[in-house]
């Protein structure tokens, strides 16, 4: 069983960041997102131990689906909790970023990162799954229960919006 555990650890090391990125769309904080990833990994472990699956690490689309489901559950419980705690003000952690530019002085990348974070949930999850998850539109459509055409449309629309946002940010910078 040790080798199975090692295989899962390697899988986690390889895919953890992209799962975390996807989970960020559902968790309020990084810790929430990490909890979602952990919950998904746990569920996937048990799922993969069932007959005929051999216990090996799962395919990414399935994990994205699981994170999404866990995120929806979290979102629902968060909404209920917020109603109870309306007086509490949450502060943003401005150092807490979802994506890291490869080069720190790459200003466009920093702006693009902000633009990705500001995309609507529907567009962002498609961009994340396609760009960093490496999923096909068919796989994305299964995760989101939409048609592949809708997934492709959302992707193109997201790219269009990011292009516009980036252009606008550049203009504001030079104004």
């Amino acid at each position: 069983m040790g080798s199975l555990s090692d295989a899962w650890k390697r899988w986690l090391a390889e895919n953890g960041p992209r799962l975390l990125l996807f989970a960020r769309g559902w968790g309020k904080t990084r810790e929430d997102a990490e909890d979602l990833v952990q919950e998904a990994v746990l569920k996937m472990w048990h799922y993969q131990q069932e007959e005929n699956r051999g216990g090996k690490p799962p395919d990414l689309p399935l994990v994205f689906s699981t994170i999404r489901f866990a995120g929806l559950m979290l979102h629902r419980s968060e909404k209920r909790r917020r109603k109870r705690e309306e007086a509490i003000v949450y502060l943003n952690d401005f150092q807490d970023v979802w994506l890291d530019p490869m080069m720190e002085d790459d200003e466009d990348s920093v702006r693009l990162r902000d633009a990705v974070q500001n995309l609507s949930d529907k567009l962002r999850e498609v961009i994340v799954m396609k760009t960093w998850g490496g999923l096909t539109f068919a796989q994305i459509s299964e995760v989101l229960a939409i048609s592949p055409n809708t997934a492709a449309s959302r992707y193109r629309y997201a790219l269009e919006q990011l292009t516009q946002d980036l252009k606008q940010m550049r203009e504001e910078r030079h104004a």
Partner: protein
Amino acid sequence: MREAVRYEAMEKALLRLMPAALSETAQAGMEAQLDELSGSVEVLSGDAGVIRHGFPRWAKWLGGIAAAVTIGVFAFPFGNQESAPLVGIAEDDGMVVITELDRVENVLDEGLFVDAGGSAVRKMSVRVVGESRILDEETGIEVTLTEPRREMVLLPVSTF
């Protein structure tokens, strides 16, 4: 076509962004969880960063008890024996003994003997199984330990 080129540029720009890694704590917590699930390592609850390799915590002193019982049986094969001090061992490691029970499985009359004082005694061989239910308060795991042992009982004989 022009649109495709523009998208391609954006896709390339996106790929220059790397997803942030899981925090060390989260990564370690998940790896420990995977170890625990695979049965090779136990996670100490409440401290995701600390893991203990090997068997579950109760297995450690389970082995100790087994060794103690084995030593007891072989060192004193024909003497009266006391049961192994399960309570002491368990409580030392944060375990709680819920119940302890001695069950007599078999009694064998081995005949009459004369003891060191010259008195006649009947030697009875009794097979006893000690059963202890122990709770690990940290994990909530309940373990039942069975400890088979043989005891020799010497009964004074006054009539023949």
